[in-house]
């Protein structure tokens, strides 16, 4: 196992029911009180595509209500790891896992786990904005409707609340009945965030949410992450190290399927413990 002492420290110290360890936060951010509850816990967790081990024996706690960024070069397994958390990898027939991945103490890959219920609690926003070819309203209301809310008034409330949370309400409130595919890429991505928020998840998984967006739209998404921070447990996979350092509280660095380093963001970027991490964040390889 190739893992730094620090990452192990986080993992072990946070696995207690309510760890109260001081958490490093950049000075410009508000301190989140009562944080440090592990939300997703990986124990010797590996993911295979057929014979190929894409993610190797990860041990890590993702802390509740914090933003955790996952960085690493292409093909390092960071997306695979993220998608394992709400079992999106189930779509790939050859994919299987070993070890344990716990969500609120329950095994995500347990025999009796209802993956539909799980995905309701662990929402995901994808690399490319993927609104449905329906109206903006129907896009947001899709999730709530699935879960049995059909009352028009209640749906309208949810739609407005979700769009406001995603900072999109002001831009689209007058054209909720228009097709969502008519929105700009950045708006579409925020719509996808709003759509995910509408089912009131506990965890928000963001898989390179800005890679298809221009800098302005990217800034808006980053602002949005700041807004949502503290209300949701957020995990974001990103190629952009500046982005990771801007938006996250914790950063995980993956290399060739191994979780190399997992530390508070500022620490990882200013004082990495591992040579590999240092090489990566200083741009010696990518």
């Amino acid at each position: 196992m190739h893992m730094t002492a620090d990452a192990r420290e986080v993992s072990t110290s946070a696995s207690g029911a309510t760890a109260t360890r001081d958490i490093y936060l950049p000075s410009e951010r508000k301190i989140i009180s009562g944080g440090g509850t592990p939300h997703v816990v990986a124990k010797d967790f590996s993911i295979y595509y057929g014979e190929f081990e894409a993610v190797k024996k990860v041990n890590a706690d993702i802390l509740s209500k914090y933003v955790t960024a996952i960085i690493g070069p292409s093909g390092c397994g960071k997306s695979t790891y993220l998608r394992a958390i709400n079992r999106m990898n189930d779509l790939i027939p050859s994919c299987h896992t070993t070890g344990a991945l716990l969500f609120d103490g329950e095994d995500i890959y347990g025999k009796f786990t209802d993956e539909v219920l799980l995905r309701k609690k662990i929402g995901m926003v994808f690399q490319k904005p993927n609104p449905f070819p329906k109206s903006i309203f129907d896009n947001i209301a899709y999730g709530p409707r699935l879960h049995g809310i059909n009352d028009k008034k209640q749906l309208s409330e949810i739609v407005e609340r979700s769009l406001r949370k995603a900072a999109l309400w002001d831009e689209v409130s007058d054209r909720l009945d228009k097709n969502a595919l008519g929105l700009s890429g950045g708006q579409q991505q925020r719509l996808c965030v709003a759509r995910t928020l509408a089912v009131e998840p506990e965890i928000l998984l963001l898989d390179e949410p800005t890679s298809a967006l221009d800098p302005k739209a990217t800034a808006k998404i980053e602002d949005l992450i700041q807004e949502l921070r503290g209300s949701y447990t957020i995990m974001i996979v990103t190629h952009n190290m500046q982005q990771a350092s801007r938006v996250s509280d914790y950063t995980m660095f993956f290399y060739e399927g191994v979780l190399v380093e997992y530390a508070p963001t500022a620490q990882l970027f200013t004082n990495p413990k591992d040579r590999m991490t240092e090489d990566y964040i200083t741009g010696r390889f990518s």
Partner: protein
Amino acid sequence: MNLGTRKILDRSFTAVGFGSIAVMGIALLIVLVPIITNGVGSVFFTGTLEHRKMLFNEFGRGNTEELVKENAVSEVYRQQIYGMLSAFESELETMDAEKKQDYLSKYGPVKTALQTLIGPLPGEAEAILTRYKYGQTRWGKAEEKLHEFLYETKWDFSNPDAMSKEYFVSRATEFEGTSLVKLFPFVEEHLEDVLRPEFTVYWGFLTDSSVDSHIFGGIWPEIQGTFFLAVGAMLFAFPLGVIAAVYFTEYAREGFFNSILRSANSTLAGVPSIVFGLFGLAFFINTLKVSESKSVLAGSLTLAIMILPTIIRAAEEAILSVPKTYKEASLSLGSTKWNTIMTVILPAALPGIITGGVISLGRAAGETAPIIFTAAVSVGSAIGLADVFSSPTPALSWNIYNLASEHEAAAEIRHVQYGMVLSLVSIVLLLNLSAILLRARISKKLKG
């Protein structure tokens, strides 16, 4: 490869491409032009008084007063013709036996030809078949018949090494020296006064039943039968096909069993339709006994089996072309697989599925072989919706074949056959056009 050769190759390929498209276009023109020009003739033509009388008697259509008036005018000339006939008949009585026998043998065909031309002659027993109750209803045909009346067709067998040659002998010359000789120029001159040709638009061709196996009347039973059969086939094949496609694309695991199913499906798509027809007879009628004998139900089921592989393939393609991201988005919101399929994947795949469906509908409407043994009859009236489980029906495709090859008076009613062909081609084209429009509309809605 150097630039020059490459350019020449590119050019020559363009030329070959253009050439093949031109050949296709010409072929299409050669096929379509006669279909359209002749087919249109079944509705728009120069109709005679006989046609109007037929419509009045068989379908109760037309203005009685005008018809009486017209008939009176026509009758003036008819009476003169009848007068000439009876004059000749009395003249026959005065001849000696041998001469009389000679003229009688020539007079018989003259009477028959005249009867064909202007309808029943006085003093004859009323015809049982409707076709013998009227003269020529279409002016074009009347002109042909006039020629047959004026000239006897004979064959020249003098050269044993060649095909015999057709030649015409004027009937008038055969009756030289009798009173009948006046008849021929009179009929030639006054045929228009007797038959009173007039431009006719007969929409009833599309909405009337046929009279006396398509000699008169329209093709509504065939149109309706085709509609019943095709729609019936779709009712069975479309849901089944879409469900099968969903299974193949979303549920089936790749494996031996699945690949066998897929290749079986592809093979079925290539089976000749006559095989499906025989299968339908053996399976649906003889084994399952869905009906006593031929029925719309059995025909629809057979057609359904025939178009099922195409529908499955089209639906599969359509479902596979739905972006995977839709599915991911839906699942990540906590949707079940079933819900995802019903609310996201199928709606997005709908344009493709519908296109496949309507093209199959067109194919079902046009197929002949599968319904020969299972559903089609050559002559029949339009059946009610309640009879589809037990009654066979006429259908365009089968009746086109029947009129072209087996009908006892096929040559007399080519216009009906062409009318059927044009109707069938139009129905299929309309279906395909509606598929294109529907697809465009749904795609536009999906794209926003």
